């Protein structure tokens, strides 16, 4: 089996989850079994994963595994299904709080608060349980598939004490303890596990529990583990008891300053993994440039593979091309979070220069605004737009679900980030014929954009140069169409087939290393 290691598969995804989903679909198209491992417990793990197209067969939750709940057919559990052990109860619906208050009909005492999910048919989310003396003694959390999964026992002074995870038939199989340390701080002091075969293990930390889990699923050896979240298992994967092919997957710059990859302090997320690089079977990066930088700095003995994290599906590749003169003239777009790392103020400055000569130019910004510092980045850009009198030129468009439609009407994709791990957005834009104009930013944009072929790469931070290239494009319709053709053409690099071939090289190396087929 090929396992992708992550925390979970939440609704709000980062690039890593998107990359995993694309990879999973790619593998599925080529009949290569694979599963996303979710280390953390979440009551909606299956709900959110399924909604992202990750089916139950492609998902392995660590807690599910120990709870004997990897395959549970979902049912909608509502308050009517609950049994409080009280013969007659009354129920009051507090709609504004999304909960029911359940009282004992015999004595009027509160038995439970039942919290429900108003969006999903009022399915039970959790129950807060009270004893007859009025103590909140326990909170039960229900899996979205309709069973009691996590039980949190409360301490007499109303803090979470011991926590237990149950099998769907109600046996406790995982426990964790919250107790006082020597500073009288309530901390997690350990984990306890009872496995299907009856064995009981204890662990100091969830990391140790996770390592045990990885060894358990690799009991027969010959699996491939792709570490997508380095800190989850960067140690564990170097200590597996049985043969496995371990892949350290870079999703971001290995260097703290991506523009100084050979000297800057190592990215904290990768520090341990890079210090132990040769204890992995191989390393994957998404771009050749990053692969080269890793080799130059770390001189790994582990194999290096360059495999794009983005895939342009065949449907897109086979679409009719939209000619440049059929698109809105002067339409520049950016698809990025409105955040400091994206440096969109530079793009606005460049557009100002362009606007002075080509008044038709417009800039549409697609993406969520980063909320940190009270939306400071967005406010900064708004102020700049005002200063430059670009109110009619630059527009915040927010998040859209149909970005393809936008991209089929745009001419230029502007990219001014400080650092990138790959940038799926520019790849997708180019697949729809948009011309890329980017800073020389590591890693991704300066590989995806090929200077003079599908756009231009200018010096990092030089927005005037960026403006010049845009002007060049807008002033030369023939060049514009040639570059757009180049965008369509270079997108082939990210075709299903090409990315699959890259993965096949890795899988073949795994088979060679393991001396046999990868376990199905």
């Amino acid at each position, binding site marked *: 089996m090929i396992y992708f290691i992550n925390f979970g598969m939440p609704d709000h995804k980062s690039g890593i989850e998107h990359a995993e989903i694309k990879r999973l679909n790619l593998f599925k198209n080529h009949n290569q079994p694979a599963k996303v491992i979710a280390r953390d417990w979440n009551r909606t793990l299956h709900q959110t994963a399924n909604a992202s197209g990750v089916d139950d067969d492609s998902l392995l939750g660590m807690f599910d595994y120990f709870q004997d709940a990897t395959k549970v057919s979902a049912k909608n559990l509502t308050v009517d299904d609950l049994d409080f*052990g009280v013969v007659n109860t009354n129920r009051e619906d507090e709609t504004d709080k999304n909960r029911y208050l359940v009282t004992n009909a015999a004595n009027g005492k509160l038995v439970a608060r039942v919290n429900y999910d108003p969006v999903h048919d009022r399915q039970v989310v959790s129950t807060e349980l009270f004893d007859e*003396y009025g103590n909140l003694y326990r909170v039960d959390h229900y899996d979205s598939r309709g069973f009691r999964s996590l039980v949190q026992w*409360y*301490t007499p002074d109303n803090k979470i004490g*011991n926590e237990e995870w149950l099998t769907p038939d*109600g046996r406790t199989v995982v426990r964790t303890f919250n107790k*006082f*340390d020597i500073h009288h701080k309530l901390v997690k002091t*350990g984990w306890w596990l009872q496995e299907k075969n009856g064995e009981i293990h204890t662990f100091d930390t969830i990391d140790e529990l996770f390592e045990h889990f990885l060894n358990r699923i690799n009991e027969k050896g010959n699996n491939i583990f792709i570490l997508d979240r380095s800190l989850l298992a960067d140690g564990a994967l170097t200590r597996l008891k049985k043969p496995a092919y371990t892949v350290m997957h870079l999703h971001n710059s290995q260097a703290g300053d991506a523009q100084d990859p050979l000297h800057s302090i190592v990215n904290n997320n990768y520090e341990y993994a890079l210090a132990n690089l040769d204890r992995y079977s191989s390393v994957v990066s998404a771009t050749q440039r990053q692969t080269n930088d890793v080799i130059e700095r770390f001189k790994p003995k582990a194999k290096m593979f360059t495999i794009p994290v983005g895939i342009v599906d065949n449907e897109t590749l086979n679409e009719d091309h939209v000619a440049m003169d059929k698109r809105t003239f002067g339409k520049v777009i950016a698809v990025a979070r409105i955040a400091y790392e994206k440096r969109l103020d530079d793009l606005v400055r460049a557009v100002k220069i362009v606007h002075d000569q080509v008044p038709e130019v417009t800039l549409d910004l697609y993406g969520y605004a980063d909320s940190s510092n009270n939306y400071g980045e967005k406010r900064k850009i708004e102020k700049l737009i005002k200063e430059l009198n670009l109110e009619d030129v630059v527009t915040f468009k927010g998040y859209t679900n149909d970005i393809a439609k936008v991209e089929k009407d745009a001419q230029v994709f502007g990219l001014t980030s400080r650092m990138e791990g790959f940038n799926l957005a520019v790849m997708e834009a180019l697949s729809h014929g948009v011309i890329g104009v980017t800073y020389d930013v590591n890693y991704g944009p300066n590989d995806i954009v090929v200077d003079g072929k599908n756009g231009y790469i200018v010096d990092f931070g030089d927005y005037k140069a960026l403006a010049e290239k845009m002007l060049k494009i807008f002033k030369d319709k023939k060049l514009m169409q040639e570059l757009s053709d180049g965008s369509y053409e270079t997108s082939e690099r990210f075709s299903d087939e090409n990315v699959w071939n890259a993965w096949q090289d890795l899988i073949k190396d795994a088979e060679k290393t393991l001396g046999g087929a990868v376990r199905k």
Partner: protein
Amino acid sequence: MIYLVGENVFTFNSGTEFSQFERLNAFNNNDKRAVLLLRNYNRMLSNEIKKHGLRQKDVINMYDYFQGTVKTRRKEQSLRLLDSIPLTDYHIVGVDNNYSNIEYKGKKIGEIRVMPATVGLVGSIEYYDSLGQTAVKEYWDWRGFKSMVETYHPDGSVAMQQYLRQDGSPAIEVTHMYIGDKVLPTMWKLINYKGRDWQFRTEDQLFTFFLNEINNQEPGTFISDRRTLDSSVLNVENADKKISYLHSVPFKDYNRPQQGLMDVYERAVNGENGKEFDYVILPTQDQADEVAKLTTAQSQVVSAPDSYVKTGKAKELSQEINLVYVGRLAVEKHTDDVIKAFKHISNKLPEAKLKLQGYFGSGEYEKELKDLVKKLDLTDKVEFVAYDPAKQVLQDGTLFLNASRSEGFGMNMLEALASGIPVVTYAANYTRNNLVKDGVNGFNVVKTTPVGLANKVLELLGDSKEYASLSQGAIQTAKENSEANFMKQWNKFID
């Protein structure tokens, strides 16, 4: 079916439990099917009942009933052959006969206690957290299965107890939270019993539920022997009959019964919430008559024997003088008076010995008695013999000395009489004129002082003819308290 309702069975029991065991045996020997229903959790129970000659099918413990382990047979579970301890990862390091450590990379992560009175069988396992505090403790039943799991609050007090079925699923869950400012059990929850959950505020409410379940399966007569259980028994619906049996004298002042009942007996005699016992049974008719004067309930107040004996042989006075007392060595039994009386006897008859057999009411009283023996310079004449059903000091006893002021029946004295040993006792209420009859099988000494007791003993030891006659009388009393007679009395109420 007859249900004898009790709390527990220990190695050391009070007379109440002995009386229950005897009654259980007599009923079952005489085609009155009876079982003992017990409330308290006791993972050693199957071993304890064996010590008392009871069979597994004679006893149903409430926890066992809900855990589905009433009939589970014993299998010896070595602590080194547990499925739960992966020897691929952990070392089991034997420390001594009582416990072993579970170690991982040299760190103690848990402790296995050996089942008491076994060699290397598992008794309990504690798992520690990373700070070395006990986080989970698993208790094994004598019969070799994991029976209960306990977790703890941050201050180390018990947080939760789970009583398990054989498949590991919880049958009963007990929550410990605040009642006022103390952390105590606040809820007993029966889990997935016949497909649903049941919540109880107290263990007694759960016990009531249990008794009703038993009665629903097979209706019967319930006999409550412990006042703590009266309420549960009163709340059984549709029982054939409900009986309270009072082993001890229930009056506030045993010299003045008319002053009323002790509070703890109220429920046994008068019932509660409109629920009453069909019969209130006392060991002697004179007690029954007094109680009948006090009752406000419709219950019939009657008498039936506490126990019965097998009859031995009459004795002749011999050179060897062994004075004996068997029973609890406790303040209310005035065991110190027996020793003081013996001092007077010993002064006159230096060859006489005193054997006291039984367990001490308290450590304090044990010290008091032993100090007294030393002070009176009787160390080589007075022997304390540990309680042991197999080794009775009655066998070679000459006279039985009793200094308690009140006995519901005096089972220990009946045992002595059955061995042909006359009894010299303080004239205690409800023994006097019942069990011990002056000049027939012993004497009731009205002057309740050690000297009074001693003088009567010395008098008897000087008269071998009188002694022989009393011994004959003792045997006769035993015959009146035979199993057959016992059943005849009881049959009036349980038929």
